[in-house]
């Protein structure tokens, strides 16, 4: 009898220990199992598993001057001048600009006013299209300040001196002088996709001395009047997305 009681009492600790150990093992394993299954359910229902992250996608810069009107003109310029379509034809002549821009001279120039801090006016000698050292420096400085811009615009002009046809050709050469200089100095195969050239001759959107002589020019402090400021190529990165 006494032996039975002893045996029974010695089994109690064993049973208690086995019970605790088993209960802990089963209970915790079940908890972990349930957590794993719950993760699987969240995986099966992505809407529950994750809210939309809302992470932005890398894109070009968009400045405040990119008004709908500005973009409309820019888009027409870039599209019609072959930049967006990747055509071999490069640049736009005055008649093209007049047609596709469908905008007055004054309004066309007004669009570029916000670019004063971003752009510059490369000045040329009369009847010349060569870049002097100061002009090369201005082009390098301005082109080096790309930041997030997608397009670099070059707008060649000529003063009213001389005939229309001659001035068209001259402004074309001036725009090209910038483009060719950039090609030579950057050796960037993607350059054609970045630089848009227009040449306006002397017949469209002439620059006004009182405004554009105050812009950064390649000849700061030099003579600048209505004639000289149009012997030029306007250059600027444009921070707009299209």
């Amino acid at each position, binding site marked *: 009898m006494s032996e039975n009681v*002893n*045996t029974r009492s*010695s*089994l*109690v*600790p*064993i049973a*208690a*220990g*086995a*019970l*605790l*150990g*088993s209960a*802990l*093992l089963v209970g*915790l*394993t079940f*908890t*972990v*199992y349930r*957590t*794993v*299954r*719950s*993760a*699987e359910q*969240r*995986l099966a229902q992505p809407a529950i*598993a*994750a809210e939309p*992250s809302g*992470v*932005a*996608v*890398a*894109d*070009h*810069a968009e400045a405040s001057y990119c008004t709908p009107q500005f973009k409309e003109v820019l888009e027409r310029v870039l599209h019609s001048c072959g930049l967006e379509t990747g055509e071999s034809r490069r640049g736009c002549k005055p008649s093209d600009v007049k047609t596709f821009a469908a905008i007055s001279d004054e309004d066309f120039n007004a669009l570029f006013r916000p670019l004063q801090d971003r752009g510059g006016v490369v000045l040329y000698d009369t009847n010349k299209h060569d870049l002097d050292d100061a002009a090369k420096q201005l082009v*390098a400085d301005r082109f*080096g300040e*790309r*930041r*997030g811009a997608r397009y670099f615009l070059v707008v060649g002009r000529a003063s009213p001196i001389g005939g229309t046809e001659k001035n068209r050709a001259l402004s074309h050469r001036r725009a090209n002088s910038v483009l060719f200089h950039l090609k030579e100095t950057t050796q960037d195969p993607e350059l054609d996709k970045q630089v848009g050239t227009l040449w306006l001759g002397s017949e469209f959107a002439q620059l006004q001395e009182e405004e554009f002589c105050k812009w950064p020019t390649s000849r700061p402090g030099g003579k600048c009047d209505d004639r000289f400021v149009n012997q030029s190529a306007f250059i600027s990165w444009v*921070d707009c997305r299209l």
Partner: protein
Amino acid sequence: MTMKRWPAVLALLASGLGLLFGTNSTLDYAKHLDRSLHDVHCSFIPGAAPTADAEACRAAMYSPYSAILKESYWGGIPISLFSLGAFSFFAGVALYLVLAGPRASRGVQRTFGVLSLGPLLTSIVMFAISLIKLGALCNTCVGIYISSALLAIGGIAMLLRPNVDLANLSSGPTASPYAVAAVGLMALGVTTLVPGALYAAAMPDHSRFLGNCGTLKKPAVPELLTLKTSSPVKSAIMFEDPLCPTCKAFHQRLVIGELFEKLEPKLVLFPLDSACNWMLSEPLHPGACIVSKAVICGGAQAREVLEWAYDEQEALTAAGKAGDKQLTALIQTRFGAKMIACMGSAATKNTLNKHLHYAVDNSIAVSTPQLYLGDQRFCDEDSDIGLSYTMAKLAPEVVR
């Protein structure tokens, strides 16, 4: 009599504590199987709530040492899961020893004492790995180490007890000490392995998610930096910000996991700093543009400069917030005036700009880090506990 039971009581308490920390750690790990980020427990205080601010615990959880079979299962089977079975076993036996008191089988006490050294040895190994490989200690892990140490103290105390008086008091069925040891070892093995086996059987299939996170549209441009590795077998493109803590952690995981040396990585610097990155309206990591320029100027040693920036990230981040001068001074102290001159050059500025435009050309998300194996994006969700598994599936040559 009560005094003689203290080793068993200590072992019981230690087992309970170990179960608490082990359970928290395991459940935190299991929650992450849904490929999302969750708060984790990272406190010495038992029962403390999980928190988002738990860098050391996250580093431990994401490291290759947090789980086994990581290349076979997404996330692997967490080491802490084995502690659940082990501590359950020790808790049960400890309760028996407490209740049985001096009448407890001497063989059971000895077996318990010897087996209690197992968790301690495991903890010592994990502690050493934490210090040597990870350079940080996770509080939850330390909780388990302490529990293991207390358990071992109780176990050793039982081993060291004199035989004489206890032998006379022992009652109940007697068995050979070897048989008791064999049964104890087997029971510990089974209880330790069963949760792991069930966990592996219940794990969701992640293979359907791999490689579904997009591709690069444009090939690498010459301006990208090459990071030197010892045995490259797989080309990769990495978008990183030297002052981004997540980039640092990811880089370290690749290095610690011995994966980085097998990659042939091109680095795209993508500083989340509005000083050069127009995609941000304000700097997320002030000074990251300056440090990125230093990495560019590292040239062939770009990896060394990048890893220096990661090592010194805290100081560089503080300097970046204080101002450009302070940050530049730190860089100059380490790399000299020549580096500063290079960083100020137009060419360096242009190169960094090209890195950012490369990101634009590929329409990548404005976030770092990002890894592309070839042109295939490695999903962010696979870059932590699922790193080894995903790498084994997408680039098996890297894990071989």
